[in-house]
């Protein structure tokens, strides 16, 4: 690939997604963009670059960005952030939200939806404690294609075996054809997916008690990381929690967040005091609702 073509694509992708492509990623660019060129009936990436320069067709620019930003995802990826949710955050929220009986969670780079569905599965496992509660799981991704996949809840045999215990496969999925599996309706109904770009205004999405934004910041440069984290800080409830990926941190990036003591990968707003949220006394609870 010509250096000027590489620059053209990398600037485009950076502007639209925040993803930083360094020169050593030329192979990645070539392997991901060749199918895009083919889709547009162009023979080479040279032709694709020329077409971008000449027309700046919105759909083509979008195809290029999406091809570069699609990432693989797994159910219960890294396991620990889901254990922390179930064992640490959920018990806290059951107390602190006892009056409101509402929990809102945002999977901020939802990809094909596995993170959001993993959380829905956990919540279903804990359903007895959540009788009468309203739980919203909201998933956004930059890619329209990913959002469609996430909504469908259909995964390949490979995908449902990475990270998903077979007991959950049996309980929460139905087989579609010979080697595809679809998340059952009761779990799909717990999650809403829509397109969303972390670099632009989030729009009227409300506030969240928990935001998962894992393995996204690693692709951004420093100013973009800061921008994204500060935007997230504005949609987090004052005692809310942010999950970042294992290789990500807020330290040296923003003053808005601080790490939560003893809980790796969890961050809370700096203004918040103590290691855990102040818990108001729980009101008397009726047996069932």
């Amino acid at each position, binding site marked *: 690939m010509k250096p000027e073509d590489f620059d053209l694509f990398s600037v485009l992708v950076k502007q639209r997604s925040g993803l930083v492509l360094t020169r050593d990623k030329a192979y990645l660019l070539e392997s991901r963009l060749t199918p895009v060129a083919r889709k547009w009936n162009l023979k080479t990436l040279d032709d694709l670059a020329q077409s971008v320069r000449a027309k700046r067709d919105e759909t083509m620019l979008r195809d290029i960005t999406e091809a570069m930003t699609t990432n693989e995802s*797994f159910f*219960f990826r*890294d*396991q*620990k952030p889901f254990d922390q949710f179930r064992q640490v955050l959920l018990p806290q929220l059951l107390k602190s939200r006892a009056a409101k009986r509402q929990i809102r969670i945002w999977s901020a780079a939802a990809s094909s939806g596995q993170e959001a569905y993993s959380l829905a599965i956990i919540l279903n496992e804990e359903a007895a404690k959540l009788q009468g509660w309203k739980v919203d799981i909201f998933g956004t991704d930059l890619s329209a294609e990913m959002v469609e996949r996430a909504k469908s809840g259909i995964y390949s*045999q*490979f995908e449902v*075996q*990475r*990270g998903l*215990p*077979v*007991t959950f*496969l*049996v309980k929460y999925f*139905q*087989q579609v054809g*010979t*080697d595809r599996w679809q998340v059952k309706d009761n779990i799909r109904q717990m999650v809403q997916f829509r397109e969303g770009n972390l670099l632009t205004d989030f729009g009227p999405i409300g506030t969240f008690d928990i935001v998962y934004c894992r393995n996204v910041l690693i692709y951004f440069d420093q100013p973009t990381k800061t921008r994204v984290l500060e935007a997230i800080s504005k949609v987090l409830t004052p005692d809310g929690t942010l999950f970042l990926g294992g290789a990500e941190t807020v330290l040296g990036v923003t003053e808005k967040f601080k790490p939560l003591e003893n809980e790796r990968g969890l961050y809370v707003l700096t203004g918040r005091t103590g290691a855990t949220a102040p818990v108001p006394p729980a009101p008397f609870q009726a047996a069932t609702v």
Partner: protein
Amino acid sequence: MKSCLIVDDSRVIRKVARQIFDTLGFSCEEAEDGKVAHAACLKKMPDVILLDWNMPVMNGIEFLRALRREPGGQTPVVVFCTTENDLNHIQEALTSGANEYIMKPFDADIVRSKLSQLGVIEA
């Protein structure tokens, strides 16, 4: 060192599986059918058994049922690894005492993720 018994009638699959388990730090034994596997278990119960379903002489599900009846036969973690990929087979395996289920084709990632969920290896 943890031990693994790889039960599959295909030598190629046994070799692939063995490489994966070697990398994960297991000592491996192999068996080409359920009967050979059963005899190996009576000598010494392995920590993990990777088990094919369709095999000559004694198939995987027959072996599993026989194993679970043996003294000490509850201990090994049994992971089915088979081309049978429908819900009925999976449910039959689980009710017969399997701990996990892998649908072929499989790779090292899948094996690792299943074993770490089972607590057999570190995440």
